[in-house]
């Protein structure tokens, strides 16, 4: 009964997207305040019913209602309660419902926090979001309903995919979706601005916090996915250039470009059309990612639901959204000319280069991701593009980007002279180079020139990011949240680069065979297998080995890697044993029994790998800080016109 209620609630939610879209768009077009008010009511209703629908599905999981097909396929009575909740988004149907819920959340947030915007703008944004919600609701109802009954009911479920039974992966999809779906908000704002025919710096100020929040969730989501892949897949890698990773990374790159181009649009009224295009592109890539993952056109860990019907629906939806938005752009773009100029060396130029390089990187990744799909679709043979391509194609635009970052951060708007900061920047560059060479000479026996260059550039960025905050602090000046956020995010980027470069240049990996009592030497450490024993978990059995790691006779750590067999799906799973220090990981994963008590083991030494995820978190933190900037909460011209209203707005948001 509950599950039918969920289904019905979803149908109602779909029905409510129609007035949301119609009254939102038409109300703004004909300037009817009552219609526009209906749109924001519809949003609230849509959210309530979507949440109810999601709640019903979650309830079915809690109750182990195996008469529901989706529950029977993705849960089991032995599954721990926490994972029963995570199992709601463990497969295609439920994760789409999560997508829909997140979109409803974003819509409600826009409706609730938009007191500083004119009603027509809010209304148009909600209208566009309504169209997107409607499309997705229809997609779920027509092709991927999680509310199908299974008759006769299964005695027990087929269990959640063991790979997904992990805390990081339980929260990875919600984070990632919040980011992915969040790009629909700047998209909706872009469409609204084009419909309105007006795009000023106030508009940029409204969009910026939304874009930043979506982007920071995407950052966290991607980082969580990478961290999970590292310890759960048993390969010890943190990024594979897998098509689905690319699908999430491309919107991130475009989102990063958008954040920077929005800064120019807000401060200088420039790059308007470009900002619109990026807003459209970000959402288009998020939809493309969904298409790639859900249609089964690519081979990937994530491609669990291959169904041509679903793929076709998303493709048509993508074409409608992007085609419509681009058509509107072609018609309206001439309205957004700006007449201000800027000198060749200025912050505008640096940000322009930032955008060009980020878009180039996205384009190259897109080429590598889609080329095999196209060839396959045209029956021209099956190929895949190897990871080395992506590494090279990504580094080509990223190296100059990192080098331009340090001076870019300190360039002035309109015309940058660097008079005051030239010496300081040069000194920091020299210090970064010396430090990069010295530290890596001592610690890692420097042998990669490219890595040293990359690390020196990253250190330069890190130092330069600290200049402004330290200077302001010393002089007792206040520092705006958005400047501080920028500095923190760039510092995080530097941490990430240092981590990624060091790991990729100085990691030491080996596969070898070991039996209890034996010792293997690897990367200067002794790995001794003490024992093998059987372990029983709630829904799995495992073989666990105890590996003692020592250096020069002194014990460093004991790790317990496992090889698990989940009882229902009977897939073997690797639980790596990892010894974590701030400056390195020692990674041990069990392979397979080789007979005679011996096991194949994967031993890896990963220097500074924690900096990768820590850096990503610091980048996200920078986003959080910059969103807190006070100017995002101010009503346009409110200080003079309506101080009362402004105070109210500030307290509400």
């Amino acid at each position, binding site marked *: 009964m509950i599950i039918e209620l969920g289904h019905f609630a979803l149908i109602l939610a779909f029905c409510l997207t129609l007035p949301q879209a119609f009254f939102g768009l038409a109300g703004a077009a004909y300037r009817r305040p009552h219609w526009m008010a209906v749109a924001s009511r519809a949003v609230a209703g849509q959210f309530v019913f979507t949440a109810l629908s999601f709640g019903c599905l979650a309830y079915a999981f809690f109750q182990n209602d195996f008469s529901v097909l989706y529950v029977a396929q993705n849960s089991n009575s032995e599954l721990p309660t926490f994972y029963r909740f995570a199992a709601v988004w463990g497969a295609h149907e439920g994760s789409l419902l999560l997508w829909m819920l997140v979109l409803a959340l974003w819509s409600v947030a826009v409706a609730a926090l938009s007191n500083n915007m004119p009603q027509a703008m809010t209304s148009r944004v909600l209208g566009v979001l309504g169209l997107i919600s409607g499309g997705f609701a229809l997609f779920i109802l027509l092709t991927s309903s999680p509310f199908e009954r299974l008759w006769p009911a299964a005695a027990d479920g087929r269990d959640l995919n063991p790979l997904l039974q992990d805390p990081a992966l339980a929260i990875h999809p919600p984070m990632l979706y919040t980011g992915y779906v969040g790009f629909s908000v700047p998209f909706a704002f872009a469409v609204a601005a084009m419909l309105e025919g007006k795009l000023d710096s106030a508009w940029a100020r409204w969009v910026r916090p939304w874009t930043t929040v979506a982007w920071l969730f995407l950052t966290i989501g991607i980082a969580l996915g990478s961290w999970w892949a590292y310890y759960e897949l048993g390969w010890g890698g943190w990024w594979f250039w897998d098509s689905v990773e690319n699908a999430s990374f491309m919107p991130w790159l475009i989102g990063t470009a958008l954040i920077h181009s929005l800064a120019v649009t807000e401060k200088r009224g420039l790059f308007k059309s470009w900002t619109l295009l990026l807003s459209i592109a970000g959402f288009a890539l998020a939809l493309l990612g969904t298409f790639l993952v859900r249609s089964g056109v690519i081979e990937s860990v994530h491609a669990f639901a291959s169904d041509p019907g679903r793929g076709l629906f998303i493709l048509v939806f993508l074409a409608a959204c992007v085609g419509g938005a681009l058509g509107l752009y072609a018609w309206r773009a001439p309205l957004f000319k700006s007449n201000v100029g800027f000198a060749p060396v200025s912050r505008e130029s640096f940000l322009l280069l930032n955008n060009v390089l980020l878009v180039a990187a996205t384009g190259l990744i897109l080429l590598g991701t889609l080329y095999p799909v196209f060839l396959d679709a045209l029956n021209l043979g099956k190929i895949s593009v190897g990871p080395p391509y992506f590494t090279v194609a990504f580094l080509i635009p990223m190296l100059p980007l990192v080098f331009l970052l340090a001076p870019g951060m300190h360039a002035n708007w309109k015309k940058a002279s660097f008079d005051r900061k030239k010496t300081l920047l040069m000194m920091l560059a020299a210090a970064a180079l010396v430090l990069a060479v010295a530290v890596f000479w001592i610690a890692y026996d420097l042998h990669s020139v490219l890595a040293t260059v990359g690390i020196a550039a990253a250190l330069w960025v890190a130092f330069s990011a600290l200049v402004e905050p330290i200077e302001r602090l010393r002089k007792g000046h206040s520092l705006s949240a958005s400047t501080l956020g920028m500095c923190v995010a760039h510092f995080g980027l530097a941490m990430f680069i240092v981590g990624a470069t060091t790991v990729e240049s100085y990691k030491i990996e080996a596969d070898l065979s070991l039996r209890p009592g034996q010792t293997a030497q690897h990367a200067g450490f002794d790995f001794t297998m003490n024992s093998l024993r059987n372990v029983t978990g709630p829904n799995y059995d495992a073989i666990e080995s105890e590996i003692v790691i020592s250096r020069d006779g002194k014990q460093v750590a004991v790790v317990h890697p496992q090889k698990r067999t989940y009882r229902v799906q009977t*897939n073997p799973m690797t639980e790596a044993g990892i010894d974590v220090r701030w400056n390195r990981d020692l990674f041990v994963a069990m392979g*397979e029994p080789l007979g005679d008590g011996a096991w*194949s083991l994967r031993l890896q030494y990963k220097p500074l790998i924690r900096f990768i995820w820590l850096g990503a978190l610091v980048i996200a933190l920078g986003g959080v800080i910059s969103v807190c900037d006070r100017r995002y909460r101010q009503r346009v011209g409110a200080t003079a016109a309506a101080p009362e209203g402004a105070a109210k707005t500030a307290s509400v948001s």
Partner: protein
Amino acid sequence: MTPRRRRMLLVGLIVLGVASAAAFALTAFQENLLYFYSPSDVTEGKAPENRVFRIGGMVTEGSFHRPTGSLEARFVLTDYAHNVTVRYSGVLPDLFREGQGVVARGRMNSDGTFVADEVLAKHDENYMPPDVADTLRKQHDKRVTTPIPAN
């Protein structure tokens, strides 16, 4: 230098930079295109000699061989028409099993075996990599009498 010449020089440098970057990227692209072949293609000599490619098929039942305590594995990949012997040294993926579809990346050895750098086996027992499923379907269409595992 006049401002005009300086501008020309700047434009020239940018063009040069972009051109060389594009050249690098395209070379990397060309070098890293991995073609996919079935055991039949390999037997018929369609696969390249000195180039990394991917091969996919089912691991023949009873063909997996690995000396005790060693990482050197050897198994036969089949598309139920032709077989190719694959050699691999290292940890095999969790889902590697006889009778399962796998994809291996590597190159042909002079003795006619395929030396893999990487072996991929994905998903649960009902799953087959799309490429492998396609290959098997083709073989199936060619000779309808061959039994094909349900998928």
